[in-house]
């Protein structure tokens, strides 16, 4: 009898006011009026087509990502959530997160989100430094960022996240830490602190800005982590820090290799077949125009993860977490046992990157620093 694998729902809302030069997500600058009603209808149709794949399973978290979901009206979000509740078994204490851009905040709308059932907001602040915000192509300034935090609180959200980035063009160590300090001063329950990287198919990739060198980035990360820890923000994942018990449950499910259903343009799903144990990855068509075309099949691609790639796929996610991983989790999520990974484990132990016993595997402090090397060891060639 298979253990029940937790299931999350991801909803992608693909539009932004304008596309940022570093962003490689499936987001599209808004050139005309937002086709909100059409998109909500398409989402519901998409969900209905997927229902047989998750029949009878409970949803533990919902995440509205983008794009900029806060471009949608409270009514639109409410319509989507109503449709979800009508069709799926939703956990009573479910976490429902919505991503918001500080440049698109208005209090009434946020109160509406709260009423619709959204109970967590993730604010894309990125920096409190106006010069850096400009370089990043953001539509907001530091003033709007601070106001956004205030608005979210007043709208009734006691649980929210601030997204920040570091290793920005021309950023000094002091500036990176100042951004964190500013965030900490506002006491968000959760801080996600990402490193800016140049990804293919972005404007930054084509004309790369000068980024801080490797050693400076290492200093930022080590000192930033310490600063956050000193203020009660515990690092529980590579880039996630939270006050006690304010983890992002939706993301935790990704990292623990749980299942998720993704609806919306370019959304990805990972679903385990309860009978065979096969793990299927599904991607929906990326472009909103295609997604909105009722003639078109929204599934762009689906395949079953090759058994040989499972150790890598699992580790790529699970090792991002600071807590030890248990062989029990590996078995539940992939059907693999410790012995299946023996050669890689031995090599990593020799390099003092991991420690392992019969119950758990733990990254050493060095292993955390060289996580990419550890994960690459599990690639089957």
């Amino acid at each position, binding site marked *: 009898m298979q253990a029940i694998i937790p299931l999350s729902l*991801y909803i992608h809302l693909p539009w932004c006011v304008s596309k940022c030069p570093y962003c*490689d*997500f499936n987001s599209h600058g808004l050139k005309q009026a937002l086709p909100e009603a059409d998109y909500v209808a398409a989402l519901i149709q998409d969900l209905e087509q997927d229902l047989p794949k998750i029949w009878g399973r409970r949803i533990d978290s919902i995440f509205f*990502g983008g794009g900029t979901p806060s471009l949608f009206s409270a009514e639109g979000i409410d319509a989507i959530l109503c449709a979800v509740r009508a069709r799926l078994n939703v956990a009573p204490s479910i976490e429902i997160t919505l991503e918001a851009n500080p440049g698109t905040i208005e209090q009434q709308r946020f109160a509406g989100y709260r009423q619709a059932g959204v109970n967590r907001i993730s604010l894309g602040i990125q920096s409190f430094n106006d010069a850096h915000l400009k370089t990043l192509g953001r539509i907001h300034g530091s003033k709007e960022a601070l106001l956004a935090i205030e608005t979210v609180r007043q709208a009734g959200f006691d649980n929210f996240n601030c*997204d920040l980035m570091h290793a920005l063009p021309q950023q000094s160590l002091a500036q990176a830490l100042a951004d964190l300090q500013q965030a900490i001063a506002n006491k968000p329950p959760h801080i*996600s*602190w*990402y*490193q800016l*990287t140049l*990804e293919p198919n972005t404007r930054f990739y084509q004309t790369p800005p000068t980024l801080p060198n*490797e*050693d400076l980035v*290492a*200093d930022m*990360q*080590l000192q930033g982590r310490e600063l956050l820890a000193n203020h009660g923000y515990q690092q529980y994942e*590579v*880039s996630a820090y939270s006050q006690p018990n304010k983890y992002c449950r939706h993301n935790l499910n*990704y990292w623990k290799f749980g299942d*998720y259903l*993704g609806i919306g343009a370019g*959304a*990805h*799903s*990972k679903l385990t077949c309860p009978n065979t144990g096969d793990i299927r990855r599904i*991607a929906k068509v990326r472009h909103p125009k295609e997604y909105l075309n009722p003639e078109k099949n929204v599934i762009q691609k689906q395949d079953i993860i090759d058994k040989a790639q499972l150790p*890598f*796929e699992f580790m*790529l*996610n699970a090792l991002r977490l600071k807590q030890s991983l248990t062989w029990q989790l590996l078995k539940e999520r992939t059907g693999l046992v410790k012995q299946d990974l023996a050669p890689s484990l031995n090599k990593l132990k020799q*390099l003092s990157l991991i420690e392992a016993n019969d119950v758990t595997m733990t990254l050493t402090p*060095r292993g*955390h*620093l*060289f*996580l*990419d*090397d550890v*994960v*690459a060891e599990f*690639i089957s*060639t």
Partner: protein
Amino acid sequence: MTTLDHIRNFSIIAHIDHGKSTLSDRLIQYCGGLSDREMEEQVLDSMDIERERGITIKAQSVTLNYKANDGDTYQLNFIDTPGHVDFSYEVSRSLSACEGALLVVDAAQGVEAQTVAVCYTAIEQGLEVIPVLNKIDLPQSEPERVINEIEDIIGIEAHDAIHVSAKQGVGIPELLDMLVTKVPAPVGDVNEPLQALIIDSWFDSYLGVVSLVRVKHGVLKAREKIKIMSTGKFHEVTKIGIFTPKASDTDALKAGEVGFVVASIKDIDGAPVGDTITHAKHGAEEALPGFQKVEPKVYAGLFPIDSDDYEDFREALAKLKLNDAALFYEPESSEALGFGFRCGFLGMLHMEIVQERLEREYNLALITTAPTVVYEIELTKGEIIHIDNPTKLPPVVNIKEIREPIVIANILVPQDYVGNIIKLCVEKRGVQINMLYVGGQVSMSYELPMNEVVLDFFDRLKSVSRGYASLDYHFDRFQAAKLVKLDVLINGEKVDALALIVDRDYAMQRGRSLTENMKELIPRQMFDVAIQAAIGGQIISRQTVKALRKNVTAKCYGGDVSRKRKLLEKQKKGKKRMKQVGRVEIPQEAFLAVLKIDKDKS
């Protein structure tokens, strides 16, 4: 059927850039070898590498039919020759199939040293040399000066040299007429037993061994039984033909003619270059004189990065060796790099080309160690040995004397650059033995350590003379020298494949720049990497590649992990191009860091 007196076999002797390829294209076009539409730029250079580098490595041939002024049609066999200093050996092979040669000189640049050397070879082999001035359309051309240079430096009559512009097609019919008039018809007897000289052989995956031959006596026909004289093996001819330049089958090749032979020879050593083909029955008694064996000048170790590739590597070398007699190889094993081959080359360009062909055509990932010349060592016991590998240098106590090879280098250069050349030769430990002003140029002779010449001298010479200086050199003698072995240690462990033999006076400086260069080439790893240079037991320099502080990116990934997966997979593949020595991953280029030292100085 063409009779002997209507055949002309010729080569073109020319320096790189003097327009040989353009001229050959013009000749082919004029004789109708290819239609205008088929005429692709420079048809003769058929290997990719040749095209990219603009040089000719392997001999190729074209048979053309030319209707001369006297109304008769002549069969012209043009045998191409390589143009780089590394390949002068190949030239004499091509020349041995000819009765004449066109000496093509750039009317603006004048005579070049290598052309002189090749021209002497042609004269020694009894060829009729016809001087041709090319590029006379250029405003800076000086035909009178260049004619004087040809007469002064080479010593052949040049006043009736034909003026040609291959680019514009000027003088082509005159040139062809001159060729027919001046180049002697081949001597041979179709009634004698068959003797065909193998000028070149290469391996074709569909046909087996294909050989380019010059028939000296007799007639060779398709479906005849032949014997390869050195191996004594019999084969049946499946295909014979000529290049027009497209390969086209013929019924027979007879005395005086040049063409290709295919005889289902699957064994890659089946038809060695320089060998003689005769008939299985009523064959010739004696083989034709073959070619002088060529000695490699530079040796380097080649090792597959993936040890599983060793057998493929061996096979690839055997195939290359077939039509590259100058390539030498024998198994070598290194503590650091495992099993590979010690390979001998004519020079650095030859080495680069072989390595490139192995990587491109045979899909091998290889590490090449620093190239070295052969040293002569007199042991205290009186015995004399030659070593082609720094790791084979005996312990110092057993050595009475180390001798390094010295070459005589002949350099031709326009007067403006004489100062730069002298400076370069002094830096390379050269001793001047002669200097002459001829025409607009200066002819200089130097004694130089071969070690200095083969590594990067040619490139340096070109760069200090804006490409105008030209070079030819030959081995002269071994001479006692103060040489020491420079060891390289990575994290405290001696890496045999990185050892070098260097002049004692320059050892400190070399050790320093070597470690500095390696520091730039070895990527940062999870731990510090110490790079040390040592002589005897003494460390003379040290550099450290500082450890990476971290290798983890705090990046946001939602449900789509495919990009991260691809990135890590790509990085892992990149690592496979590096060789792990101890715990340290060393990229290919780091093993050749020594070559970079000298380049940096220029």
